[in-house]
């Protein structure tokens, strides 16, 4: 997202013939126009959301992500801090591919682990593959009892096919 959305024009010194869109925007647009039908209150498990730096802080999808969560979750719990000021999942910037720095990375995940634990949620929805691994490692290392699910999976389950 960051590469195509913001950096590439500077690298290539030209404008692109298209725009880069985070998936959350397309889903939220579908929800707003009523074309994407989601079963209201489909998910009842206490859930929290990891604001990925890519899509929230760097693409401004905070509002859209919450609209989608509100559409399908009955027990949504915010982390503190959340949104644009949330802590990083710990796995950004290629940390997942640098085993030599893994110990430090895991040590730095403590802050996030406590944020998740404090929500009491048993599911963390993540909107980024790096976050998926990051939160997984966080919960494992700090024994937070929560499952991790991609936002796409969480929403896809709640699609109302009968009404479509």
């Amino acid at each position, binding site marked *: 997202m960051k590469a195509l959305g913001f950096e590439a*024009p500077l690298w290539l010194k030209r404008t692109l013939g298209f725009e880069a869109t985070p998936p959350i925007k397309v889903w939220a647009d579908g929800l707003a126009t009523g074309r994407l039908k989601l079963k209201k209150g489909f998910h009842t498990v206490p859930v929290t959301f990891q604001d990925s730096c890519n899509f*929230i*802080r760097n*693409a401004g999808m905070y509002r859209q992500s919450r609209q989608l969560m509100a559409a399908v979750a009955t027990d949504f719990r915010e982390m503190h801090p959340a949104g*644009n*000021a949330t802590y990083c999942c710990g796995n950004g910037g290629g940390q997942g591919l640098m085993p030599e720095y893994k110990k430090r990375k895991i040590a730095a995940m403590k802050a996030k682990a406590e944020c998740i634990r404090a929500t009491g949620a048993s599911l963390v929805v993540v909107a980024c593959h790096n976050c998926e691994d990051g939160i997984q490692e966080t919960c494992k290392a700090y024994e937070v009892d929560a499952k991790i699910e991609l936002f796409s999976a969480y929403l896809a389950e709640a699609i109302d096919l009968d009404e479509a």
Partner: protein
Amino acid sequence: MIRAVYDFATGPMLWFSSAFFLCGLAYRLVRYRVLMSKARQGLPADFRPGWALASIVHFLLPLNRTARSSPWSTLAGFGLHIPLLVVGLFFSAHVVMVEQRFGLSWPTIPDAWADGLTVLALASLAFLAGKRLLHPSLKGLTEGKDLAVLGLVALPLLTGFAAHQQWGESLLMLTLHVLSAHAVLIVAPFTKLTHMALFFVSRAATGSDFGKREVGPW
């Protein structure tokens, strides 16, 4: 002898330092502009003035996360910068000097205010220096230069206050005050003190960048 130095420092040297200071800052700003347009060659302008302005305003007023996360440092920051500006520009003796040398004049603040503000600025500086020296994480980050700059800014405040209180030999204090102020003006464009101009550029750049994503960096 001291009288001669004083006359020189409040005379010809004042012209020199002011010119050097203003040209230096202008050079930094123009240089930024030139380098920036080189990097953005061939790309359409996408600067967001509204977001840039909002970003500056949120930090000129303490309307930001930093003010909440570091309230004491923020307080010290304001406690240092407001007196520097207000006393620097509106203290009666400063305005009189500018009037004599440059023929411009504007309203002044009561002298008692100037004293109070100077004490506030010195206390803030002491807090910032103390934090640098004692805070376990900041200690490792502090360079000699950082302390030197704090000290350099403290000098004109201390000597100015002493002169106004008639401590020590007043002409000597006054001369030291003027000389140290010159030193601040001269190093400003080439140390981190350039933030007096580049703060606005940096905040605007970041405000605009984050604004493109509709996120306010404050």
